[in-house]
Structures are given as structure tokens and as C-alpha cells.
């Protein structure tokens, strides 16, 4: 026998999907919303997104090389983090703020804790929280689409919080992305399309997005004097769609068990509505996801699936 044979443990065949093409699918799903954001906010939006993505990847490459760690930027996880962070910034932020956000997300939240699969909270959201804490004014200056940092305006949720009535046209604008807000958060339709693409490709599971969005809708309906329009506004605005489909579903920081995922979705929903309702902040998605992220190990521990044939033997 001239051929050398490999010997290894079973199984001997593997599914086609690997980490790299999972991340690539997430990027593809985000592209429509990116496109809409760039359309409404202009070239600066494209620059910000490009900056965050590039600096995230560069930062990871440098750290992997400098500390001689296994893994590679080819798995595209840093690119996804950078892209998500960019989409979560207002188009008015200075370029260096965008870069610093990426560096914090990758270097501190991800690599300092062990790299891929070891971040304890969502890196993009943590990066954004860091930026909000350090540069609150820059991070909360919202630009009216199509005006290029001359006219600032309040986000739709801020309007809701102020108690002002919402026109249906505003809801429509929120759906397509023609509102002030973060670059990629605004267009619910584009984000939803991407989210459904990911569910169809079995990249994310329906549990977290479905329970998160339904909980937010139901709770804001109950607490908002049963006003349907404002409940829809709560769902379409404030980054809920992007949070529910792309952030809360991040593998590393969401529960691995089915029941755990339901708990996370509902928990995020409750926290989001409470933060929006009873705090000074008009937006609660990022903080509620971060808070649920740190609960995930506990959730996992208490929601382990029932082992087949598990029987409590008597005596």
C-alpha cells in the first residue's frame, strides 16, 4: 500500500459551515442596513464604518501577532465587531472617537479576556458604552439625514419620551431609515431583512429576537397607556431591531440552551422598557443587552437541557 492513511477519532466528516463563513453571512446581512445608512447620512457615514471596521481588524491583527496568539483575522469576527460598532455611532462623531471605540472593543473586551469566544459582554456594545461614557456629547449628537452636521435633531424615541405625539409618517421614516439616529440603526426594514436572512441560514435562532421584540412591544403597550403607535415606535426605534437580531444574538454572550435564550430575550425586553421608561436615557437597548450578557453564565447553569432518559431513581 503506497498511500499513507490518516487515523483519527470519529467522526470523519464535517459540516461545511465554519466560523469564517458564519461571520461572512453576518456581514452580508448587515450590508443592506449599511447601505441605507450611507444613503441617508452621506459619505461621512461610509468613512466612519470603514474606519471602525478597519481599526478593529488592524487592532486584532496587531495583538495576535504581538502576543503570538492562535487564531487569525481571517475568521472575520473582528470585522463583524467593527462593522456593528460603526453602525452604532452617530454620523457626527469625530473619526478618532470611532477608532478608539474599536480599539477598546477588540483590545480590552475581547482580547484581554482571552480572544474569540471569551469576551464576557458584547464587544461592539461595550465599545459604544465606553464612548458614551467618555464623550457623551459627541455620542449623543444626532444629525438629521441629508443635512451633514449642520442641523441636529432629537431621535424619535426622545420625542416619544417627551410625550409628544407621533405621526404615522414618522413611523414610516423609522421603518425605512429616514430618521436621525445612528448610521445603521435607523432602517428597520433593511435590518429586518438581514435578520430574516440570518434565521433562514440558521445562523441565529428565532428565540432571542422574537422574545425580545415581543416583550418590548407588549410591555411598552402596557406601560404606555395602551397606545399602539408609541409601542410601534418603541419597536422600530432606539436600535431595538439591530439589538435584537445582531447584538443580543452574539454567540459568545448569549445562552447556549434553548430555555436560556428565551430568558435572555425576555430579560432584555424588560430591561429595555424599564430603562427607557424610568430613566433619563431615551434608549435602553445597549445597556439591557450588556446587563443580560453578564447574567449568561448563570442562565446557562440553571437552564441545562434535560438529559434523555433522566430519571430520579428512588432509594
Amino acid at each position: 500500500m503506497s498511500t499513507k492513511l490518516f487515523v483519527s477519532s470519529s467522526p470523519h466528516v464535517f459540516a461545511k459551515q465554519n466560523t469564517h463563513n458564519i461571520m461572512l453571512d453576518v456581514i452580508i446581512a448587515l450590508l443592506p442596513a449599511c447601505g441605507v445608512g450611507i444613503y441617508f447620512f452621506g459619505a461621512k457615514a461610509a468613512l466612519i464604518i470603514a474606519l471602525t471596521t478597519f481599526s478593529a481588524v488592524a487592532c486584532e491583527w496587531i495583538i495576535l501577532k504581538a502576543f503570538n496568539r492562535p487564531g487569525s483575522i481571517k475568521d472575520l469576527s473582528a470585522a463583524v465587531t467593527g462593522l456593528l460598532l460603526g453602525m452604532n455611532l452617530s454620523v457626527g462623531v469625530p473619526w478618532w472617537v470611532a477608532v478608539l471605540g474599536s480599539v477598546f472593543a477588540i483590545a480590552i473586551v475581547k482580547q484581554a479576556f482571552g480572544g474569540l469566544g471569551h469576551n464576557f459582554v458584547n464587544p461592539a456594545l461595550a465599545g459604544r458604552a465606553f464612548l458614551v461614557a467618555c464623550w457623551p456629547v459627541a455620542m449623543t449628537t444626532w444629525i438629521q439625514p441629508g443635512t451633514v452636521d449642520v442641523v441636529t435633531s432629537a431621535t424619535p424615541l426622545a420625542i416619544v419620551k417627551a410625550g409628544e405625539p407621533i405621526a404615522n409618517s414618522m413611523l414610516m421614516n423609522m421603518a425605512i431609515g429616514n430618521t436621525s439616529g445612528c448610521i445603521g440603526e435607523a432602517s428597520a426594514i433593511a435590518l429586518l431583512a438581514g435578520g430574516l436572512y440570518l434565521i433562514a441560514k440558521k445562523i441565529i435562532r428565532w428565540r432571542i429576537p422574537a422574545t425580545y421584540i415581543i416583550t418590548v412591544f407588549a410591555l411598552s403597550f402596557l406601560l404606555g397607556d395602551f397606545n399602539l403607535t408609541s409601542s410601534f415606535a418603541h419597536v422600530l426605534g432606539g436600535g431595538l431591531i439591530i439589538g435584537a437580531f445582531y447584538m443580543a444574538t452574539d454567540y459568545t454572550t448569549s445562552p447556549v440552551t434553548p430555555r436560556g435564550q428565551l430568558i435572555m430575550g425576555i430579560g432584555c425586553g424588560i430591561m429595555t422598557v424599564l430603562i427607557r421608561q424610568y430613566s433619563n436615557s431615551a434608549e435602553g437597548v445597549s445597556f439591557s443587552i450588556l446587563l443580560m450578557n453578564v447574567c449568561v453564565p448563570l442562565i446557562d447553569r440553571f437552564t441545562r437541557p434535560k438529559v434523555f432518559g433522566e430519571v430520579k431513581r428512588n432509594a
Partner: protein
Amino acid sequence: MLCADNATKPRFYDKEENEVKKKTFKGGVHPLSHIYHGKSLSEHKAAKVLEPPKEIVIPLSRIIGKEAKPLVKRGDLVKKGQLIGEADGFISANVHATVSGKVLKVENRPHPTGIKRLAIVIENDFKEEVAETVVPKDIHAMSKEEIVQAVKDAGIVGMGGATFPTHVKLMPPKDVNIDYIILNGAECEPYLTADHRLMLEHPQDVIEGLKVIMKMFDVKAGKIGIESNKQDAIDLLESFIEVGDKVEIVPLAPKYPQGAEKQLIHVLTGRRVPAGGLPMEIGVIVLNVGTVAAIYKSITTGMPLIERILTVTGSCIKEPHNLIVRFGTTFQQCIDSCGGLLDETAKVISGGPMMGIAQPNTDAAVIAGTSGILALNKEETTVHDIGNCIRCARCVDACPIGLVPLQISAASDAGRFDEAKKYNAMDCVECGACTFICPARRRLMQSIRLAKNAIRKANK
């Protein structure tokens, strides 16, 4: 703990047996579904006889069970069907000569488990002289005990791959009521078509064998589970069933591991085998279709278990085919009769791609549990770089037993075997679905096996 009183329903009966509507189980994966599970390479080819070679190597051990004691020595003349190895202990099986000839040696020879084990090497005289002990019997006139003894004498073992001695399976404790006999015709492993061909070519042996065993235990019903991608087998077997036989053929969703015993029982009867327990505890006996056909054929012809249908297949076999092979033929001889290996062969596997054993060479001898010989190229079976676990939980979704493989594997990799035990590592059936689906290419199955071994050692 055995269920002595069937009148009180234990916790693990979760449905009325007659109402089982689900035809599939929770979890599982679909390996190679994009190439029709590889079965199209051989499923339409009738099994052809591979004439036994000059040298026959009969290992005294199979996969499960203690090695048989050799009864012959160098120079002895043996006849076809003669007992040459005696079962040693309770979990052990007889071994027979599959040709007539002279015993050349009794020595260690390559075995499909990858190491060399004691075997009896026979020089075939090509006379096919049958031993005097080979006497046909009237199976319908035999008592339950006589049938069990005949099964033991014939050296029948589980032909699905695990080679558990069948006579032990047919001897549940006296106080246990058997309600169902289940035949496993799922053949959920990709590429393998041996059971499929057996059902198409020997349907009567399967059905008659099932009826005999059903009579032995006075059961409620017999059920044959067959994956729905074998519709021709389903239809053919159904044509051999008469009303009043109490036999039912149940089509199953083609999913891996549908043929895993616990999953099969649950789908067919609604009952769950308790963790760490045996099917007989819940009143069920499961047998592979090949095993049942072998029982019927060996008792009615008198010839013990000496051959089987196996599938030689894979992208690196020139002409994939199903063969009827006498035990003791080497893998290389089977491969040669199918055109030989292509140059780009990277792995030769005994069994299927999900649970089979990779072979270091092709010199191993075919045994009762060898359901297939699979040759794959580097691209299909390449050992990828291991990535970080991203906690995507695909393994949790895939596990048919409800385990969390990523946790068990992480504990095992860190050497924390106690923790792995807490995470129910011992309940793993080693189907490999988790490792198949892992996008980070982590060696979950390997870590879990390591943990199981460490736990077993610690328990001793």
C-alpha cells in the same frame, strides 16, 4: 433498576404507545445531505459474492465482549461452520471457521479496532466442506430456551456494528415483560447501504425472524424502523406482512443518528431508556435487521454466522459495491474486488463516516460488525485547525441526548473530569453529531471520549 410492575406507569413513559405521532427525535444532524448521504453510490447495486481468499483470518474478539477461547491449534483441520473459538464468560460469543482448511497459526493479526488481536489463521482448501455440527432445524418447533441456545451456538452478535452477543439480549431477567421487539433498519450512517440491500434481498428472513422472536416473548407488537429514503425496502417488507402478524413498518425521517438505540425506541414506542439503563428495562428489545435475518437463516440452515453483506464505498473506491463477504477476508481484498483505491485516498474507515474506526492499513479482517469499508479523500476528511469555541451552541442543538458538548469538552480539555462527569459525559452515545456540526472544528468527540475513559478508570 428493573421495572417489575408494568401496571404502574413509570416516569419515563411519556406518551400512550399507540399515539406516537412524532417520526423523529429532538436534535440530530444531516451529514452529507447535499450528496444524498453518499448512498446513491451503492444503494442500487445488488450484493455480489466475494469468494473467500486463500488465507482466512478469524479474530477471536469482536468489538464488545471478551475474547473467545481458541479451540484449535496449528495443524488442525477445520470444516466450514466448525466451532473454533468458544465464548468465554457471559458477554462473549462463539467464533466459527468460515471455510474449510487447515489452521496455519493462532497469532495476533490486524483487527478493525486498529490494533492487532489474537486470531486463528486458516489456509483455505477451497473444498467448502461443511462441519457435521451444521444441521438445519425447524425453528417453529423450538422452545424459547432452545432458540436462545441456538443463537448462542451460532455465535450471533449485533451486526449493526457493536457486536454485542445477541443471546444475552434475548435473555432478559424473568420478571421483565417485553412489550416490543424493534428492528433497526434505519441505517442512518451516510454511505452505508448494507442493511438496505439486506432488506431488499432477504426480506423473508427479516420478517420471519422477527415473528419468531416476537413469539418467544409474547409481545404486544413488532416494529421495524426504516428511514424514509429506503422506500423500496419499506414497500417490499410490507408485502411480506400479513394482517394479524402484529408487525408494523414505521418510516422514519432520514436524520442522523436515527438508528441510535435510544432515539429509535423513543420514536417507535414513545418510551425513553433511562440514563445508564438498558432497553429491556422498559420492555423493549432492539435488534439490527441483519442480526435478525442471521438468526433465522442460521437456525433454519444450521450454518452459524460466517458471512455478511457490507458496502465498499466512498469517493476513493473505483467501483463502489455491496459485497457478501466471509469473515476473515481482509479489507484490502474487499477493496480490490471493487476496483481498488484511488491515489488520493486519505482515510479508510471501518463502518460509516460518523462512528466508524479509521484504519491504519487495509490488512484488518472483516468481522461480524463490519458494515462498510469507506475510502475518503483528504478534502472530505481533512483534519482542520482547531479554532476557539464561539459558544454557537450548534452542538447543543445537535445532541440527541440533550447534553451540552461544549461544556463537557471544555472541562475535559482542562483535565477536570469530575466536572465532565457532572455534565453527564457518561450519557454520551458517541454519535459524533456535535463534532460534525462544530464550525470551529473542535475535537468534541475526542475530548468527551477521553473524559469518559478517565471517569471509567476512576470508577474502577
